[in-house]
């Protein structure tokens, strides 16, 4: 049906163009114009030409009445018409076009213009005396259809009645206004207006969106339970409103209701997997010509209502499972994720929600950790191999990583190893060379990331081989990891008078450097353990010492160091190390490991408390015996 209309449109206007406008024919022409525009809106091909079509129609109507108002703004044109022309048939036709123009303005988000015109409409009848001028009443008039009434008994058929068009305008305008209030941060008012919008003529979809927005406002106003209630209503209104489900999950996360959160995320990921079919089905239905969601255009920068990213959902689900230690489930989700990456034809992966997904290699690493915990060692090796192979060709022989002043100025460093963006607000006179050095620095940081990812991959590979009891391969991989990490040399800025001790603190604060040192430490420990297993105690000892050198707070290293010292009969040394460690632990009650990305955190605690206590007891025994002896 629509296709027919599309084809006939040019034909129709072609016939009209040739004829001079006459008073009897104008209502018919304008009604046809109205119907054409409504249908093209319904086909959702709104463009500038529709706007000019309306204007031309109006001008043509005026020509019939021998009135010329050249180049006037369309609002002024209407004002003139109301003053000068009294033919009810013409006015009725013009009224129809006014509503249409309001719809077009809705599409461009021009609410003020709509307000102006509606005032104009109301004031012409009563000249503004009887009705009070409250805006809310005006909108109520629009909603109830009191402002413009459909003409009864006319033989000119409108495809969409003015009453329903008015209701449509009401809903959309309220929606947009509420949305604006929400953007401004005026949540209370936003909720108020949005609730009014929900009372209007709504499609399922727009109702769900309104509820989602109200829910979001409630969250912002710290009313999580209300928010959850609205999200539920949103889903009841339209099961496809997945953003409501997603936001509900986020509220559960805030409330620390883990099970509920995971369930919501799970539903979400399942729904998203069959999203394509939903969308196809969605396009077919509807008896309604214009649905409100066709008219309201939410700015692209706002991701509240855009459909949720499957990758993001899947990843946060997997990440949550990993954090909670439900490694089996985590591994399954991670594998799904990786499979989707490698899939030939792709579900829509690139829908952007405003959430951070870590860099793709980090997702691979997280997957490797999850698999490692599930003891699926061969899978760990495969995944790690994939990362390492992708990275090694990008790594150079040596990397001198310079800590820049910029980094020094910003005291808190970026929380994850994301690709650094180039900050442009600097106070340097040599802006050109500075920005050049900035890009160089950014690229170096990226290369550092490559090294860290590859080293982590080797570390996990080493650990996997270790757990597979493949001693030799394990040592090889740990050595690879260490060699990679040793390529990086962290230096302070050459020419600035930053004291050395400050550079040290700088180095410590920078997350990349921290990860680097931590990885080094872990690799040395790993290699040490393997060497110890092979009976090369001396080399093992050396490795443990190097590990401690690289990172002081490594309890694992201390534990193994003490053990090996004990084995080598250097008990006194063992005791000193142990005591030092105990002291240090007292001092740093808060563990610094929170800074580390998720792929590194979960492999940190390796020593069980029972083992720890055993060593403790052993050493205490020795100390007491030593004390009694002396």
């Amino acid at each position: 049906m629509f296709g027919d209309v599309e084809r006939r449109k040019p034909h129709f206007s072609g016939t009209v163009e040739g004829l001079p406008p006459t008073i009897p024919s104008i209502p018919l022409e304008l009604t046809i114009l109205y119907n054409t525009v409504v249908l093209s809106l319904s086909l959702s091909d709104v463009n500038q030409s529709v706007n000019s079509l309306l204007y031309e129609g109006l001008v043509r109507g005026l020509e019939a009445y021998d009135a010329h108002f050249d180049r006037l703004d369309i609002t002024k044109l209407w004002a003139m018409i109301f003053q000068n022309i009294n033919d009810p048939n013409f006015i009725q036709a013009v009224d129809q076009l006014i509503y249409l123009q309001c719809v077009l303005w809705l599409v461009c988000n021009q609410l003020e213009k709509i307000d102006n015109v509606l005032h104009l409409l109301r004031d012409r009848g009563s000249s503004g005396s009887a009705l009070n001028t409250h805006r809310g009443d005006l909108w109520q008039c629009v909603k109830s259809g009191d402002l413009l009434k459909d003409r009864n008994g006319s033989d000119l058929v409108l495809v969409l009645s003015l009453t329903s068009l008015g209701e449509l305008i009401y809903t959309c305008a309220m929606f947009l206004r509420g949305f604006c209030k929400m953007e401004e941060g005026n949540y209370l008012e936003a909720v108020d207006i949005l609730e009014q919008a929900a009372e209007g003529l709504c499609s399922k979809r727009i109702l769900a969106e309104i509820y989602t927005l109200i829910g979001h406002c409630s969250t912002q106003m710290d009313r999580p339970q209300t928010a959850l209630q609205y999200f539920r209503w949103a889903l009841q209104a339209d099961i496809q409103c997945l953003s409501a489900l997603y936001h509900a999950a986020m509220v559960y996360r805030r409330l620390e209701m883990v099970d509920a959160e995971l369930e919501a995320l799970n539903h979400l990921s399942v729904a998203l997997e069959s999203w394509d079919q939903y969308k196809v089905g969605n396009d077919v239905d509807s008896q309604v010509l214009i649905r409100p969601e066709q008219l309201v255009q939410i700015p692209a920068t706002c991701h509240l209502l855009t459909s949720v990213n499957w990758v993001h959902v899947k990843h946060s689900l997997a990440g949550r499972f990993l954090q909670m230690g439900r490694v089996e489930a985590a591994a399954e989700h991670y594998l799904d994720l990786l499979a989707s990456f490698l899939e030939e034809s792709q579900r829509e992966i690139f829908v952007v929600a405003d959430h951070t997904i870590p860099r793709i290699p980090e997702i691979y690493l997280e997957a490797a950790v999850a698999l490692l915990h599930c003891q699926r060692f061969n899978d760990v090796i495969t995944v790690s191999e994939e990362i390492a192979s992708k990275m090694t060709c990008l790594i150079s022989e040596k990397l001198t990583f310079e800590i820049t002043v910029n980094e020094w100025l910003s005291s808190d460093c970026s929380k994850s190893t994301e690709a650094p963006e180039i900050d442009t607000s600097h106070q340097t006179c040599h802006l050109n060379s500075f920005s050049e050095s900035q890009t160089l620095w950014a690229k170096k940081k990226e290369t550092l990331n490559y090294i860290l990812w590859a080293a982590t991959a080797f570390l996990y590979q080493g650990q996997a081989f270790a757990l597979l009891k493949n001693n030799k391969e394990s040592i090889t991989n740990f050595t690879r990891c260490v060699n990679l990490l040793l390529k990086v040399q962290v230096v302070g800025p050459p020419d600035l008078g930053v004291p050395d001790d400050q550079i040290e603190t700088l180095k410590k604060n920078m997350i990349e450097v921290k990860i680097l040192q931590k990885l080094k430490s872990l690799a040395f420990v790993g290699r040490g353990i393997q060497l110890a297993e092979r009976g090369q105690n001396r080399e093992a000892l050396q490795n443990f010492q190097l590990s401690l050198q690289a990172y002081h707070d490594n309890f694992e290293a201390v534990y193994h160091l003490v053990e090996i010292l004990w084995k080598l009969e250097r008990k006194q040394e063992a005791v000193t190390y142990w005591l030092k460690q105990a002291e240090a632990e007292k001092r740093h009650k808060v563990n610094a490991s929170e800074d580390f990305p998720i792929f590194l955190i979960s492999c940190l605690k390796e020593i069980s408390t029972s083992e720890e206590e055993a060593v403790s007891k052993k050493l205490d025994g020795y100390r007491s015996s030593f004390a009694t002896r002396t």
Partner: protein
Amino acid sequence: MAACRTKAVRYLDPVKLGSGQARGGVRLLGSPGRLYVWSRSEFVSVYQRDSGMLQSVFKLPSSVWHVEVDSRHEHLFVLCAGSGIYSISLNHSLVEETGAGESFPAASQSECNRGNSMPRVCAVRAERCIIRDPAITSFILSDDIVVTVVKEDQKWRVTFLRLPLPGCELQPCRKIEDVDFPFHSNFPTCEKSPETISPPVLCCIYPRTVKDSEKQLRGDAHMSLEPSLFSLLFSVDANMLNSPIILCGLPDGQLCFVPIKYVNSEAKCHASRVKVLHHLEQPVVFIGVVSIKEDGNDDSEHQPSVDKPLIPDGVVVIGKGGKIVIIKASLQMEIWFPNFIEYHLRGPITSACCYASTLYYSTCWDFFSIEFVQRKKSFGVTGRTADQRNSQSDGTLPSILTPISLNICGIVAVSTPSLTANGDISFVALTEKGKVMMCTLPYSSNAAQSMNFKAATAGQRIKDLLAGIGSVNDRIKSLKRVMQQKDKALKGLNQDFNICCGLLSNQEDQEKGMVPSEQPISCYITAKWNRLLLQDSLVVCCILENLSDWPLEHRWSLCVRVIIQTSALTKSSDSTAFTYNFPISELTPGKKMEVAVPLNSANDDFMAFPVSVHCFLHYNLNSILTGNANERPFPHSSMIAAGCSDNNGICLPVNTHVIDLLDCLHIRGGGAAETVPALNINHKSGTSDPLAIFLQSLMCFEADNFKGNETFKGSFNVPGSESTFSASIKLSSELAKVVLKDLGKGDAAVNGSDILQWLFSGNPEVVPVGTQPLPMVHCTAPDGSSVQILSKQVAVADFSVDGSLSVMEIVMECSSLTMLCFLHQAITRRVQMLLEQSSPSSDSLPGFRVQSLRQLVHNAEFLSLLCGWKYAVYSS
């Protein structure tokens, strides 16, 4: 070098050419071995690749701009001008839609030539249009996603669409996402029509995957790139996501990329999905991948083989103007960078293709090949150490590219090359004349020499040679054309140079005050009344005469600049200027050309005098380059604004002329006698001071204003038609003698009619009237008011110490004060010129108070200014 290569060229049936620029393309479909050729007509021809037979022809609703082949689903996607993208299933459509009544021109030809059966013509119906968007300029396929590029107002829009699922092909594509990004700032917006700018070049690059099965699945049409360069250019994330990348070379010179799979992983920074890699500063015509790194194999033969293709490790981007950019990974400052290396070749380049480390490209005149890997000659093979090899295999590019001519001309499109069983490179090319040829080139020179001549292959060899002769013939023709064009251009340039020299030296002479020798190009400017559709209009008529020995050709145009001092009357000396441009088709020596421009074009109500008219010749530099008479720099309509100030041409002033009211008076024939008495009466009453009249009229206006009458427009007409304004100028008899000398009447007694003849010397209408010289002229000013000028001899006492002096008095009378002012100004200007002319001899006039005369002139000018001021006051 070129001689030792042997190549084979085989011609297939030609395709029908579309109108407009010669453009087109060739696509190969691997497994059934078919060829798809289009050339901007509405046909896509399908050839069998082995036999070269024209198999069938698809007829589309409008001219074909681009074709892509989906080898996996055996689909053809065709972009048609002004409608969108059509999908043609290659399996079914042949059966489905045959026998459309249209006859294909090549079909009958082929029948005669070879006795083959007619190719089937399949008309593609409108339902097959799966993406309806007339604005699409280019598109590409990546698996089941279609990426289109549209040029909007100020931006490019890249749209991703999903192809309908197999089985429901006729459904329209579903849009997934739009990405916008701006034009490059240097790109002129909205200037050219989409027909003339080259379309964006798209290229889909896949990351290399470990699985071999995928590689086979994709076939040879898919490009892949070495992972390290891929990661460096398009980020590691794209590589690990296994995302295909769409590289896009735009007509504004930007080279950018869009990943198909994309996760916005960079926190809080909503980076655009499209990233610009490079700016080429010229339209991009080709993007491809090459292998730069030398193969690590020890065998000296770098023969590529079908089973082990080289991994491309460089991206080649070619601009229309001949700029080539090669992108490769290189190690700098401890880190790997994508390195952009630029080369320059002679353009314009129309099309190109790559195979392994060889680039083939075509200019209009020839086809070239370039090797990126410099192969060592055979002596180097034994002596090479591992070190040397390492340094060489690092992918050092030659510092200068040396194209080798392959002697094939007129290629507008080439297919992607493929390797034949013998190890030769074969590709299909489309020429500008619509010929389709299959070219086979030996991959290396060694292979060419080892080709042995056997009796069995003799037939083929002769065929090849004949085809070669044909191609040489073509080439000679095109070279001849180039030579002729160049020759013509040089000849023209020589002529133009001589004309320039003549004009310039003439100008220099004038500046030095020397008597100008005869001007090589002269321009005679007059004002003329033109009667058209019962309406008189004033035109400036310029007659350009070529007195030089060289013709003025299409590269020249005559510009007439009319400067009207409108606002001189009000405030500063602002002026309105109109420039008219008249293309000169050809003006041979001795010929004249007449052009006319309207004088009262600004506002018809009022015209201010004097008007200065500048004539100059404009030389268009663009036209030398194109050498094409059809491409006019300006549209044929004569009106352009400030066309001569543009910087793609040279302006040579020819003549400047000031047109005052005297030149524009419309002389009434015959009516002189009856007006004489009236003039005399008026003259008697009007001998009073002009200032008095002026003040009188001013009072009149004020009175009118108080009455609140209509505003005044046009000239000052004194209410009451009877009264007129008059003014007079006295001219000493000495000066009058100079006038006579000018007129060539020698020492005859000064006569009133002579003075008038002098005044109207510039007026073209005076000639028919001048048969009977009268001391008075009755004429009409351009605004319709009547003007009378009388010249007579009177005696004055004030000016000379010697007592009474006989002078000529010029009395002018006009019903409009404005016109009177202009007239007065015109006459004083003439007198001023006369004074300047006679100033060296002014000493011979004893006691003549030149100073006082000049004072009078100044007063008069002030009067006219005053009048103008008043006009401004009332008209505003």
